């Protein structure tokens, strides 16, 4: 496996009781790449991300992060997760901490950095997402878009090898989606390696390097976003993108 590959996934399976959610998923993410994953709800996208940072244990299959097999039972899960940033659909900011502390707490507690240094980095990260003026505010005092930008800063501060975004704009009001996507686009252009589960086709088209279309626990179509969105080969993908198209573009007509 070359140095260029940050994440490699091989034949991932996951069952919940009788329900098989992942039925053999394989792909690779190169350094600097922005990988888009889309697909109808229930297709296994979120489960896939949770398996990738081992919040959920896959039943079968192997995952390598920077050449280290993380599905190996002897590995320190907490060390692995430090290298993976995770941005949740519901933000999940720590409610009792200010924006600044939300970003610095991981550096202080997990990376054992001293307070001053951690806060300096945290402030830099908040600046990067355009929120340094809101550093002292608590999550309840921020808008949804601001919360998600703090969450992105929190993930970035840990200097991860890769960032996972799990439908980062799905819980936002339409007028707040733009500010979050702008930050994500800027990061993608800076070649921050990421996997983005999203239905924002504009985002996928502008910065996505490859798009994976998931259906029923499998990746059934993959390619550069423009190809996948505009000329999907399989019927399921065609129907899916048609519906998205109607929803977003149809209204504008």
């Amino acid at each position, binding site marked *: 496996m070359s140095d260029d590959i940050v994440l490699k996934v091989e034949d991932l399976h996951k069952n919940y009781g009788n329900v098989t959610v992942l039925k053999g998923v394989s792909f690779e993410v190169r350094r600097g790449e922005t990988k888009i994953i889309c697909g109808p709800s229930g297709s296994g996208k979120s489960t896939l991300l949770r398996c990738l940072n081992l919040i959920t244990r896959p039943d079968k299959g192997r995952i390598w992060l920077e050449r280290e097999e993380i599905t190996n039972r002897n590995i320190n899960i907490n060390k692995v997760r430090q290298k993976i*940033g995770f941005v949740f659909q519901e933000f999940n900011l720590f409610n009792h901490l200010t924006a600044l502390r939300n970003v610095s707490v991981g550096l202080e507690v997990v990376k054992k950095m001293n307070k001053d240094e951690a806060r300096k980095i945290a402030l830099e990260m908040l600046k990067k997402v355009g929120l340094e003026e809101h550093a002292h505010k608590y999550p*309840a005092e921020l808008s949804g878009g601001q919360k998600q930008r703090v969450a992105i800063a929190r993930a970035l501060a840990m200097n991860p090898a890769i960032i996972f975004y799990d439908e980062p704009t799905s819980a936002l009001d339409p007028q707040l989606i733009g500010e979050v996507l702008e930050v994500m686009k800027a990061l993608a252009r800076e070649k921050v390696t990421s996997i983005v589960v999203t239905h924002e086709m504009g985002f996928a088209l502008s910065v996505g390097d490859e798009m994976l279309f998931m259906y029923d626990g499998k990746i059934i179509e993959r390619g550069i976003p423009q190809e996948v969105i505009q000329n999907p080969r399989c019927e399921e993908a065609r129907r899916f993108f048609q519906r998205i198209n109607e929803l977003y573009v149809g209204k504008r007509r």
Partner: protein
Amino acid sequence: MSFWESFISYLLQGWVATLEILAISIPLSILLGLSLAVARVYGNWLISLIAGGFVALLRGLPLVVTLLIVFFALPKLGIYFSPFWAAVIAFIMCSGAYQSEYVRGAIRSIDVGQSLAAQALGMTKIQEVIYIILPQAFRRALPGITNEIIYLILYSSLAYLVGVQELFSIAKHFNSLQFRPIEIFSTTALIYAFMATIATLFFRKLENKLKIPGLETI
């Protein structure tokens, strides 16, 4: 010496003993409450079972019975405590057991996303509990804990049963000598009411100090 002079000087001695009992049992009961709750929610099945059994037992016994067991029954097993420490231990166990239920409920009320985010940062379970879960749960449990502390202040008077010379026992004793129950017991009552009021004000202040927007008691 007039009645009031000797009464007040005796009573003050008792009050000091009561304050000593409370100064030890209030912080330790809070610590026990937090520990029991964490053990029940996050412990493996054995630790959780032991903590749960302890809480069920202590909540199932009248405090008087707990106190008498600690003072009279444990010595038969070779465990001896002075009256003061027997009372303190019984109070800590009883109050801690009740408080743990408030904390446990508060921990359960914290959104699972908080835990997921902590894990995603690479925190260990212990770091997650200390830095993320407990600071939020404690704030939510605080009104309930305050309630238990006020109970504790009032039922510290039960220490008289094992012979601790605390506020109530002094009052009772003095009354048997002088038989002026109205003066003696109403003064004693005022002191308990005073302590309860101070505790209420203190914990209300603490609640305000710890208040965070969006984290108000639900």
